[in-house]
């Protein structure tokens, strides 16, 4: 398998605060990789560096062999990023928002239409896509944004808390879509989540992150076996010495 993401000794400082500390990681093409950890662990910073929003203080970040510092524009052509607290343009309808986003990658009108149609299926908003985004509930907005991140079938989709704000049914729906996209379209997914049970069922491999460092990495089942735990929550508690 090819390498989709390769982090080597990644460090990111904000002033005197070290958000990421010598982080090294490898994500293979076509897998769903989960970054899990508590608030402030450095998950979002890691995702932002990989998605070219932030520059590393030191270390290297490669996405499909492209350097995140020097080839950021090339990386942006092959990724999509869904921030945890993302919003949609209030005065655009859901459909207009999807069209606006799809225009950055669609090569012609047909492809544009197909892409938006696909997004409409993913989000399941139906007629409400004609309404302005400011009338959407938090959950509806999240469905729209998840659809936006997947509709272009990027080589890599970086999803920060993809099911944040969604109810149980739609969380399940989104997880199934992510699985389907990886399987059918070869999309690689890097996601972060607080919800370790969700990650356990969705991800091929996970990395447990604490205080900007990876404290454990592997397949969910292997980690559970290694630490003699029932689930990833227990694994994490044991790794950070909480249990």
């Amino acid at each position, binding site marked *: 398998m090819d390498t989709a993401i390769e982090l080597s000794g990644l460090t990111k400082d904000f*002033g005197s605060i070290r958000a990421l500390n010598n982080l090294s990681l490898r994500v293979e093409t076509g897998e769903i990789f989960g970054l899990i950890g508590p*608030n402030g662990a450095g998950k979002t910073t890691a995702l932002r560096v990989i998605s070219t929003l932030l520059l590393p203080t030191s270390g290297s970040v490669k996405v499909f062999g492209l350097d995140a510092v020097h080839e950021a524009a090339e990386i942006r052509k092959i990724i999509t990023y869904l921030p945890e607290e993302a919003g949609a343009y209030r005065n655009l309808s859901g459909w207009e928002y999807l069209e606006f986003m799809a225009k950055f990658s669609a090569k012609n009108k047909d492809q544009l239409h197909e892409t938006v149609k696909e997004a409409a299926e993913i989000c399941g908003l139906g007629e409400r896509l004609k309404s302005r985004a400011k009338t959407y509930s938090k959950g509806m907005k999240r469905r729209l944004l998840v659809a936006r991140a997947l509709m272009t079938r990027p080589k890599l989709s970086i999803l920060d808390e993809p099911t944040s704000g969604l109810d149980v049914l739609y969380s399940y729906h989104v997880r199934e879509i992510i699985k389907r996209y990886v399987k059918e379209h070869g999309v690689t997914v890097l996601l972060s989540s607080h919800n370790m049970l969700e990650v356990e069922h969705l991800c091929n491999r996970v990395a447990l992150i604490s205080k900007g460092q990876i404290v454990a990495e592997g397949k969910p089942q292997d980690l559970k076996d290694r630490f003699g735990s029932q689930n990833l929550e227990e694994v994490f508690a044991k790794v950070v010495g909480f249990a």
Partner: protein
Amino acid sequence: MLKGFGNFLIKELKELVRDPKILLGMIILPLIIFPVLGGIMNFSMQSAQESASKTTVLVLNHDTGVNSTEFVTFLNSSIRAISINVSTLEEAVPMLSDYNATEIIEIPSDFTQNVTARTAVRVKFYSVYSGAGLLEGIGSSIIDSFVTSFNRNLAPDILMPQKSAIIKGKIIEGVDPRVLASLMISQAIAMPITMMILLSYSMQIAATSVAMEKEEKTLETLLTLPMDRFAILAGKLSGSIIVAGVGAVAYMIGFNFYLGSFSSLIPSGTNLDLEALGLVPSLFGYLLLGISLFVALLSALALAVIISSFAEDVRSAQSVVGYIYPLVFIPSFLLMYLDVNTLPLPIRIVLYAIPYSHPIIAAKAVTMGDYLTAGLGIVYVAAFTLVVMYAASRLFATEKILTAKLKFKGLRRSKKGATEEYQ
């Protein structure tokens, strides 16, 4: 009393007053700006009046009698009157610049004869019209006061002034510069008002649109899209220019009607064609004015984008962009009344240094056919715009656009707090 109103009001006031951006922008800044503006205006008006009273006039005396000599002596008691040795007015006009004079007084050959006989004598006064603004008529008023004083010593209505204007070196008989100035008020006021409205309105739009991306959490997604970062900046600026431009046109149409309502103030019987007098900018002049306005607008918007990038939400952005307003309001108010050339040197330097003075200066300059002044202003503002645009593009090219925050001493968030949300 509404239940809970008092409690809620106190909360609101605390929240608003404790916001340093609101405190500075809404309360402290106006407290400083208006006294400063008033002081500058007062100083400038005084110096303009002083310079008008020290005006130099050229006297073209066709009379050889004693009364005309007395009249010149009378003039010299208050202003500088220089008798010139030429026979026609056409020869006198080029001498105005040699003596730095703004008036020519032509005394007719029958002056002494008529004054001795106590019959009315017409004296011609020619004033240079320079498009100086609302105070253009000061020279004309001084002549009136001279004539009144002189007549008081002789008999009423002996001396009858016949005022004319010299526009761009041409003599325009029968046109009183003061009447001309009142006609030109619309031009003198329109540009500064347009500048104030257009710039402040478009800066608000630009600042809001950047802050909205942050507040609505759409900026992060935008920055990871396969688009040129400069295209984001250019799109924001263009959108603001278009919306503000439409707003400005609507505003100017309304403002034109407003000014039109003052046409009754122009003395009856006055029939002046500004175009024929050369007081309407040429096509090239309009082009220069448009470029001047455009580059100033661009720099203001880029500045607003930079400043608002440091704000976390729309309200903060609108407050911080208010810090640029003095740079727009001060030159607008000053140049509405005064000519930049009549101002004291330090104030003139400050005005020339402010980029937003230049479209207003250019508006007067192109009307008077002074394309060099307008052109130099464009070069200066364009250079300033390039610097600001470069800074804005650098801001958008780096993570600063995402992480920049405006901090106030004493209310600074701890570094830990400020960075936590990025983890």
